[in-house]
């Protein structure tokens, strides 16, 4: 049984077809990269898996369980056990770095002491322990990227969805952060679905690469 699966999904936005007849399966522990140009539907695939969008046709399965089908959302995003890093990072500007990590744990009813411990451990892991009290606006681009990563990982997701989070960074910083993501993946053992338009990034991150073009999987 695959951890994540799309079966013959079609997604439209008004008259525009974003995805058409896309089927894919992601196995536990694998690092799948979706490679393709802007507007080819990569982000829509991640949003379907995360539960932020529903398919007009076809099915979405999470851990073998039907999560969305034919325009209906059956499993809410917070119940899917997935983490996501957005292209623009989407850090909550009114909360501190620690607050950004803590909110999800708090929503899940994690006791305060446990919450604090996990946040501290995760910030140490991404080497941001010193900046727990800082606001996102006070951090550099690379630090913000690591906060977004830590926020997704602190909930111990079974799979991490990365929506081109490195695209706005300079080449050297992006390369370093890719290495860091791989180190974390090896250590924590989560499954990775990464979308990018950069072939070099795909080569470095993937155990398997799927190409996308105009809403379809190519080849």
């Amino acid at each position: 049984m695959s951890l994540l699966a799309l079966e013959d999904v079609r997604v439209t936005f008004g008259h525009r077809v974003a995805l058409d007849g896309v089927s894919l399966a992601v196995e536990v522990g694998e690092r799948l990269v979706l490679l393709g140009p802007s507007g080819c539907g990569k982000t829509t695939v991640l949003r379907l898996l995360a539960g932020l969008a529903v398919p007009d046709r076809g099915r979405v399965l999470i851990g073998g369980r039907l999560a969305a089908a034919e325009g209906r959302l059956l499993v809410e995003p917070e119940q899917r056990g997935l983490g996501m890093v957005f292209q623009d990072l989407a850090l909550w500007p009114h909360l501190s770095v620690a607050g950004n990590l803590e909110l999800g744990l708090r929503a899940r009813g994690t006791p305060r002491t446990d919450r604090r411990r996990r946040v501290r451990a995760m910030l140490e892991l991404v080497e941001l322990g010193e900046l727990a009290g800082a606001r996102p606006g006070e951090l550099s681009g690379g630090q913000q990227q690591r906060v977004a990563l830590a926020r997704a990982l602190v909930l111990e997701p079974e799979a991490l969805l990365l929506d081109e989070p490195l695209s706005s960074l300079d080449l050297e910083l992006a390369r370093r952060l890719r290495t860091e993501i791989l180190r974390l993946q090896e250590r924590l053992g989560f499954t990775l679905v990464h979308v990018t338009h950069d072939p070099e990034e795909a080569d470095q991150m993937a155990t398997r690469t799927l190409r996308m073009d105009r809403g379809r999987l190519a080849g």
Partner: protein
Amino acid sequence: MSPVRRAVLGSAVLLLVVAGLLPVAGMILRSLTAGGHLGFEAYRGLLGSARQWSLAGNSLLLAALTTVAALLLGVPAGVLVGRTDLPGRRLLAALLAMPLLLPPYLNAVAWMAAGSASGPVARVLGEGAARTLSHWLFGLPGCVLVLSTAFMPLIMLLVAAALRGVPPRLEEAGLLAAPWRTVLLRISLPLAAPAILLGAALVFLLALGDVTVPPSFRYPVFAVESLSQFSAFYDLSAATAAAMPLAAITAAVLGLEALVSRWTGAGTAGRGREPGPPPTVPLGRFRLPAAVTAWSVAGLLVGAPLLILVLRAGGPASYAAALGQAGGSLVRGLLLAAVGGTLLAAEGFLLAVLGVERPRGAGAAADATALFLFAVPGAVMGVGLIVLWNHPWANLIYATPLILLLGYLARSTAVTLRICRATLELVPPGLVEAGRVAGIGWGRRLVWILAPAAWRGLAAAWLAGAVFCLRDVGMTLLVHPPGWDTLPVRIMTLAANGAPELIAALCVLLVAATVIPVGLLAGLVGRMEAGS
């Protein structure tokens, strides 16, 4: 900066200064030179009187309770109409926003009619119930009920707009870890906190400065003191001194609001807004109970008073009498509103352009000034205008409707400025830049590109400006030239000894004169949008 640009934008700033800041400055000077020499003579009498301190305490209590009530109603209403799938939310928003378009005392007239011996409560529940209602209404509770209904829409509209401006990505990031309820409480509403704070500050100041509702319910407040010192005793020095604390509190509250907003991260919501509507929050199993509650509250606070006024007015004879007594005031009010709305839309548009071009310098100063003048009580502005313009050399202004137009500009530019600014921020910068590259000058870019691109905002600004002119009472009551009273002022003056049916009919006419044009224009804009 090109000479045309400097001249046009400079004139807009100068107009705001002349219309609003100079009267306030003149008032300060007048209060300090009472008796012909520099000193605090006018204040000594004011500060030494126990009655004045008691009035100030009443005013602050009324403003605080009104703000709390408006927050309790306005924040949930803003969430429900702004972001959820509540049935009929657009109609509900329109219904709840209606009191903001009307002078607050209309609701006071309706509630007093409800509690009268021949009112609907007496007829349905008996005279005892009507007496209890009337007894409860007269005083602080009635003022809080009416003023919180009147100003709550400000908070509702600000919260709804701020929630629609929260970048969807920030909420989606939350949805991966928590349900909508938590995301709204922990992410969306904290990001809308500056808007809530601004709404609360404005409601506090508007309640503090209202001079129409407290006298209706016989609740003595400080703002009425300034009005009566002038209108009853024609003591301009005392009126000026009585107005000054309100102007000072206005400046202090808005300054505090700006400070706290900066501290809580003002402006975070709305930045990086993505195109398209934000995601709708599903109410799920709470949809029906929420709809029943929201519609019941709207029915009680807005629908019931209007119905009571219509019932109280009775048949066509009352309306014929009302038109006979105050038809001229209605026509004059509409005429002044049309001209005032046009001036306000133009002024708001130009200052919004300044705000977009110079967001931190002159634009921010103009915005803060306009907001201060909006929050200054109408009676205070009226006293300021009298101090500045009541001189023989200024008869061309003081003895003509120009004085009212200046007052409207001072009081309501903030409304049209904010509407135009919100619209201009949605115009893609490329449209204007393309014109610049093509060699089109600044003035022509403004007329040929920017104004047509922002026409919806301009239309909304004109309408809002006209409505705020039409509903003004405090300032108009003090400064209207002979023969230029407006309908709200006429109703106020007739309310003391006019027949209840006549007053109710006049109130219904005022509601119709305000709501029908708003509804027609909203329908027209909606149809044009659907057509495009």
